């Protein structure tokens, strides 16, 4: 994820994404996914550009972005952690786990830690229900998570971040 602050660079990225997906049947979701993949979020500047090229209204594009839980209109932290809140994970103590994780990270859902490293999100089932409770860290899913395991995961995440910065 490269978070570009340069306006024209951003426009170029979005334009090339639109160009790449425009000929698909039903191109809007693929364009939104590709934008979020490239930029980490779907910037407001993208809305009129997508609307114009797909011959939709800005309200329609905005309406789609806001309907889906996965799409975000502002940048997330460097890492996203999702905690499964669905029934199977509940049966293995996910309610307590989510409370502890929120306390540990000092954030609620949809918020980012003060150091900008971790955004916390809820998720409703990761398909890992035989090994509940489950969480997802970026694209990695972890099973049978407890606070001990969670600390190790966060340590590993943040160590990697520090190493990259050195």
């Amino acid at each position, binding site marked *: 994820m490269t978070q570009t602050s340069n306006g024209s660079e951003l426009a170029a990225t979005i334009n090339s994404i639109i160009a790449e997906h425009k000929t698909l049947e039903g191109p809007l979701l693929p364009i939104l996914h590709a934008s979020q993949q490239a930029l980490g979020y779907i910037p407001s500047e993208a809305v009129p550009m997508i609307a114009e090229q797909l011959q939709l209204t800005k309200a329609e594009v905005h309406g789609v972005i806001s309907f889906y839980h996965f799409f975000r209109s502002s940048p997330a932290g460097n890492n996203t952690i999702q905690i499964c809140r669905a029934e199977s994970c509940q049966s293995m103590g996910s309610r307590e786990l989510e409370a502890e994780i929120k306390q540990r990270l000092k954030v609620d859902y949809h918020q980012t830690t003060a150091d900008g490293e971790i955004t916390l999100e809820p998720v409703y089932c990761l398909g890992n229900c035989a090994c509940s409770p489950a969480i997802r860290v970026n*694209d990695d899913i972890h099973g049978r998570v407890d606070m001990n395991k969670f600390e190790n995961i966060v340590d590993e995440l943040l160590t990697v971040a520090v190493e990259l910065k050195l």
Partner: protein
Amino acid sequence: MNHSSNSPTVYIPRDTTALSLGADKVASQLHSQQPDINIVRNGSRGLFWLEPMIEVTTPLGRVAYGPVQPEDVASLLANDFLQGDSSHPLYLGLTEEIPYLAQQQRVTFARVGITNPVSLADYRAYGGLVGLQKALTLTPQTIVDEVKTSGLRGRGGAAFPTGIKWQTVLNAPSNKKYIVCNADEGDSGTFADRMLMEGDPYCLIEGMIIAGLAVGADQGYIYLREEYPVAHQILNEAIATAESENILGDNVLGSGKAFNLQVRLGAGAYICGEETSLLESLEGKRGMVRAKPPLPAIVGLFGQPTIVNNVISLASVPDIMANGAEQYQEFGTGRSRGTLPFQLAGNIKQGGLVELAFGATLKTLLEDFGGGTRSGKPMRTVQIGGPLGAYLPEHLWDTPLDYEAFLAIGAGVGHGGIVAFDNSVNLSQQARFSMEFCTIESCGKCTPCRIGSTRGVEVIDRITNNEQREENLELLEELCDTMVHGSLCAMGGMTPIPVTSALKHFPEDFSPAEGANSSSQQQGAEHA
């Protein structure tokens, strides 16, 4: 990889659950300690409490070890596990003889966990493409008749006969038709679709091509939930290979028939598992449910006749074509024919996938296969069929798993997901969550669902806080009734099922003492 043919082969799954328990680390540990081992990344056998479960080929068959952690690799090598040595504490014996697996009736999952999921050579070697080859020699009507005879009903939840759906699409006059695979698998406790896609993606691809041949459709889409990154990767690898080998594309196996396939990602909306909402989403809109009729089979994707089928429904078709409808429909009971992959989840000792013919009981699954709770406390209830499914008490666990028998006890088999709870569960809390889930995931089109579920949370809170208890219990009943009768789709229409089943079978959890206790615990669950 240039391994000599006599270097040992070790299988380490790349299934999400195996990965979630460290399978990649085990694979790299093994590779670094013994680089000449041929490591195959297979799917999972579905014995999830044993994952990462690794297997080694021996003259007697594949021998399993598990659950293996990276630090176990050294001792495994020291014990000569490459020869199938039985002295290691993680030794499980011949994989096929592990009772959990040996007692199943694997039809749709016959290859899952055995083959390298993205290897076409493996797929062919284990009976793949035979069904497609056969279908290419048949008329569309003959293919549809075969699916009808099999008795296959939709595995996505509604159990609608697949052959009848296909017949409707075949009969619909249009020169553009679509095959859409519903791979949204949003229900808690379900992972059969994911396992099939990660463990045997060509089986789904083959099923979709056969569906295309049956109704005259040359374009397919797999609508996959975003929450499944591993399945996404594996499906894309398999599709690319299938294209390069002319299984997909403009000339399917040299027949002159075309079938193209793409994966499309959802974006975290449960309602997009509902078929019309899914189609809206594929078209690039908000996932708002469409009124039926018209059925998608007549006016579906982009207004064209469309088959929307679940992953397991489609993946059942290659076997039906290859081995005949009769052998398939010999499995099962009553009007529930064939097999269903049951998924054991939640607080269960031996969680995993169990494919059995319809007719087994919940008790068999929970006890013989599941081995009771993981916590060791008594099991108190199971929710079956996802977040819109009923909470069942122990005296109903003898009910045979069959669509009609479950209907009769006010429950549904749904997608076969079974979530176990021990006696620490509070059913008023679970009922409250069902309503809360509906407020989060409602598409917003109808008031009973959108607003009713919000009111439902409040009413349950008042009941458990002992505020005007009797009046509020009555109100909750009326509210559920309104949701059942006033909702356009099953999201609003079925949310009352977990609620009323909890109330009916576990009224003690809605009593004041329990309520006062639980409402303080609920505070942490407010924000979503």
